[in-house]
């Protein structure tokens, strides 16, 4: 009875479980209505490119046989018109320093560099497929990432000037965001049943990333997409209804985040502030400092009050619990709408009862990237006769080393702005974070996992609270910038203890 009541109360209706709705979405009028609903929900959720996304989805709904080709076409369109993931600011800055004016010349140079990179990748993919026993074909991702890091180091330390320096940095700026998309393509080419290059192109920063500039491939690569592609009109209708349901849930989360930020931080958007002023509403706010502001205060030698410091830490965690699902699952909804039934990026993280489970639930596609390109390559090769050591080394290779490599490659701008050594040294806080995370996940995996119902309710609550507490505190060190030292973060961490103040 209780279970029935619990199942019947839902914030978002189970659209995908309604057979009449699924039948409607298979008709031409239903396809148009679904694409329209999708575009409107994107707009409400703050996606500015809602019309173009809706148009591509509509084309894919009407021509599902050509879905993958349309994906490649839409992705090329996005690359030409909205390449916001390419570090254009960095390219302009390098060019300005070297005395080159901003303009079409730079655009052309970046386009040529990208063409060269795509040609080189095409050659590497072919090599991987043809020469399977060659050392490069056996570890293609390692070779590619090592080559990129060498390029970055060369850009950071070689005494180049003028066009050579601009060219090198353009190469870094256009390649960096694609690194992990290329990695999935290389993984696919290692199997005999891989997709041709013209279809792989559609998975390199696909159009469904929308305004997102995250270099984490949500929806992974072609191999995964082949597995989860809708095969029948009914499959497509159900997965599209799931996408709309997810967008409705994101809308709820967006509203919750807006209220949360207004009440906790006093952060109100200009439109909401105008609305409140016109209607005479007063927004109550706790004026909790953001974690960034609290760290700035600590760096300046003025630690925030104990209650405010704790409030800042808890608020930062809750902000992440609301904002990460919004950003990641927006992309997931677009992928689903295109007809690929991929898993959510974030799924009920607060239900996790272990540190490893929380990480799996919180940022699924980032975790999958690290598992695929760092964890398993280590796990299958080293310490095969010592189960615990094997697990720990592979986990550290992924959660610590892989995590650091991913972020260092992503934030390659710091090498230009600070120089190589300061960019590496300034990475100390995130290195500490990644090390603690790796160790905690290793320990969590040693302890194993239990079926949720096998734990008594109070044990579940205690386990979940422990996991949340751990991540709340760990977030203090989840700092990807280069302004604060580890000492500042440790000082702030220490200031949370009343005795240490």
């Amino acid at each position, binding site marked *: 009875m209780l279970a029935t009541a619990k199942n019947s109360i839902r914030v978002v209706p189970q659209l995908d479980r309604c057979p009449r709705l699924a039948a409607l979405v298979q008709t031409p009028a239903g396809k148009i209505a679904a694409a329209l609903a999708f575009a409107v929900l994107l707009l409400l959720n703050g996606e500015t490119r809602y019309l173009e996304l809706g148009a591509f989805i509509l084309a894919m709904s009407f021509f599902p046989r050509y879905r993958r080709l349309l994906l490649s076409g839409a992705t090329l369109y996005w690359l030409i018109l909205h390449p916001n993931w390419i570090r254009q600011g960095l390219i302009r800055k390098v060019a300005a320093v070297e005395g080159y004016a901003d303009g079409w010349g730079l655009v052309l140079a970046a386009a040529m560099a990208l063409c060269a990179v795509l040609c080189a990748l095409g050659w590497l993919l072919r090599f991987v497929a043809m020469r399977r026993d060659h050392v490069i074909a*056996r570890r293609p991702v390692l070779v590619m990432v090592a080559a990129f890091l060498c390029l970055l180091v060369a850009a950071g330390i070689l005494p180049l000037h003028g066009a050579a320096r601009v060219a090198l940095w353009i190469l870094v700026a256009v390649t960096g965001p694609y690194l992990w998309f290329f990695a999935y393509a290389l*993984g696919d080419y*290692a*199997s005999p049943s891989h997709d041709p290059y013209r279809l792989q192109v559609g998975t390199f920063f696909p159009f469904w990333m929308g305004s997102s500039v995250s270099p984490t491939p949500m929806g992974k690569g072609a*191999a*995964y997409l082949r*597995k*989860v592609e809708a095969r029948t009109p009914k499959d497509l209708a159900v997965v599209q209804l799931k996408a709309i349901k997810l967008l409705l849930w994101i809308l709820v989360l967006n509203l919750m985040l807006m209220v949360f930020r207004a009440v906790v931080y006093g952060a109100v958007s200009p439109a909401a502030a105008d609305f409140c002023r016109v209607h005479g509403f007063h927004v109550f706010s706790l004026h909790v400092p953001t974690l960034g502001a609290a760290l700035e205060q600590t760096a300046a030698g003025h630690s925030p009050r104990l209650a405010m410091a704790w409030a800042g830490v808890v608020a930062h965690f809750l902000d992440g619990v609301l904002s990460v699902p919004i950003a990641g699952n927006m992309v997931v909804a677009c992928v689903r709408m295109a007809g690929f039934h991929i*898993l959510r990026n974030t799924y009920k993280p607060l239900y996790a009862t272990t540190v*490893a489970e929380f990480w*799996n639930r919180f940022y699924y596609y980032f*975790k*999958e990237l690290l*598992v*695929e390109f760092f*964890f*398993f*390559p280590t*796990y*299958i*090769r080293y310490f*095969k006769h010592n*189960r615990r050591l094997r*697990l720990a080394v*592979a986990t550290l290779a992924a959660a610590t080393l892989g995590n650091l490599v991913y972020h260092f490659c992503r934030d390659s701008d710091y090498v230009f702005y600070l120089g190589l050594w300061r960019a590496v040294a300034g990475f100390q806080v995130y290195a500490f974070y990644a090390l603690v995370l790796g160790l905690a996940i290793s320990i969590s*995996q040693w302890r194993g*996992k*239990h*079926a*949720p*119902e096998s734990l008594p309710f109070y044990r579940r609550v205690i386990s979940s609270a422990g996991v949340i507490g751990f991540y709340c505190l760990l977030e203090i060190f989840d700092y990807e910038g280069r302004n604060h030292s580890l000492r500042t973060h440790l000082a702030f961490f220490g200031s949370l203890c009343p005795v240490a103040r």
Partner: protein
Amino acid sequence: MNERHAVRTFLLNLLQRTGDRDGFVDSDSLVMSGRLDSVDTLDLVMFLEEKYGVDFAQRGFDMNDLDSLDSIMAVIGGAIQASI
């Protein structure tokens, strides 16, 4: 036939560990569908290494190969062929 049964029982145990009591047919996707996560996959890797002598370092590791009972049986078949 016994091998298929043993692997099926192992997979059912992995699923039950997370409270998943639904059955599956031999071609059902278990990893890509999210029913088994990466922690389960590494238990499966260890099971295949220890019980059937599969060497993933030698043959290459592809998550797709462990996605369904059918694909796992193909991996085991390959390992048995290689050892003859």
